């Protein structure tokens, strides 16, 4: 296991992944709004 906040970019990448999943789940919703 790596250090908790040793690599800030790994931490940021995980946040980005989480938000990407949320965005992908909401993509149909956004598309409906766009259309």
């Amino acid at each position, binding site marked *: *296991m790596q250090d908790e906040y040793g690599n800030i970019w790994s931490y940021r990448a995980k946040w980005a992944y*989480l938000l990407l999943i*949320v965005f992908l*789940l909401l993509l*149909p*919703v956004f*598309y*409906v709004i766009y259309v």
Partner: protein
Amino acid sequence: MVPSNGATIWRGRRDPASPRSWRRILGENGVQKWAFYIPVVFMTVFLALPMALTVVWSVFERTQFWMQPGFTLFAYETFFTSARAENYLFSMIHAAIAVVISFALGFPVAVFVRRRVATALQHRVVLLFILPFMISELVRVFALRPILGRNGVINSVLMDIGVISDPIMIILFSPVGVVIGDVVSFLPFMVFAGFLAMEAVQPYVFEVCEDLGARTVRAFRDVIVPLAAPGIFAGGVFIFVNSVGGALVPTLLGGPGAVNAGLIVNQAIVAIDFPLAMAISAIMMATLMLLLYLGHRLFDLTKVLQPIS
């Protein structure tokens, strides 16, 4: 006559509305005692009885528009000797694939939230995954059509940036489309179940792994997943049941050969073959009960409900 405590005496008996009567009705020997039976009654009327009736009706004889009492296994014979049995099997495989993909995408999110996000923020981050449910599932699944379609968002973007020259056709109106639809619809449940399951993995467990020199993959595979297994299984069953039994996703995103058990049942009802629909439902119930039994033997599902000490 009005006694000193305020209750009216009516023909020598107390008014039913007096405080003492209410205490008797609402007290420990009244409603409080019988309230415990409400869940039992509810589950009997709305779960056990319909399930029993499903099995009973599945052996009834089919008439032109309805069914009549009798005993015949014709519906089961029809199911097993037609393409429905094969489709049913394939729908279970597709559902299992949807569960695996949901686990691979969703569980790391749950681990990350439990491990790295501040405690006060954890529940708010998980709430982000409720956002898709703010809009009807029908709309969400239907909106996947213009995204996955021939001239959809994905194909347009990939063709514009030059990754592909011809549109990918396999992602809509195919089993792949159904799996994508299932994952998009039910992925949040894996995040929720994983988040709850991770309660069984206390922060010191990570420290112990670190102290003993376990690498991330090893700790994940040998420590975190076994500890969180009951919760992961519960989430997996939820996604599996919905993928096998929900007729919505294959109706909108499926095509030839991309049906699931729910859609087969739906088609049987449309064909006014109620015993067949009941037989398929009974087989589905038996399959899922077997699955739950195996899961319980393997992971002890009662742990899901036990508080962590």
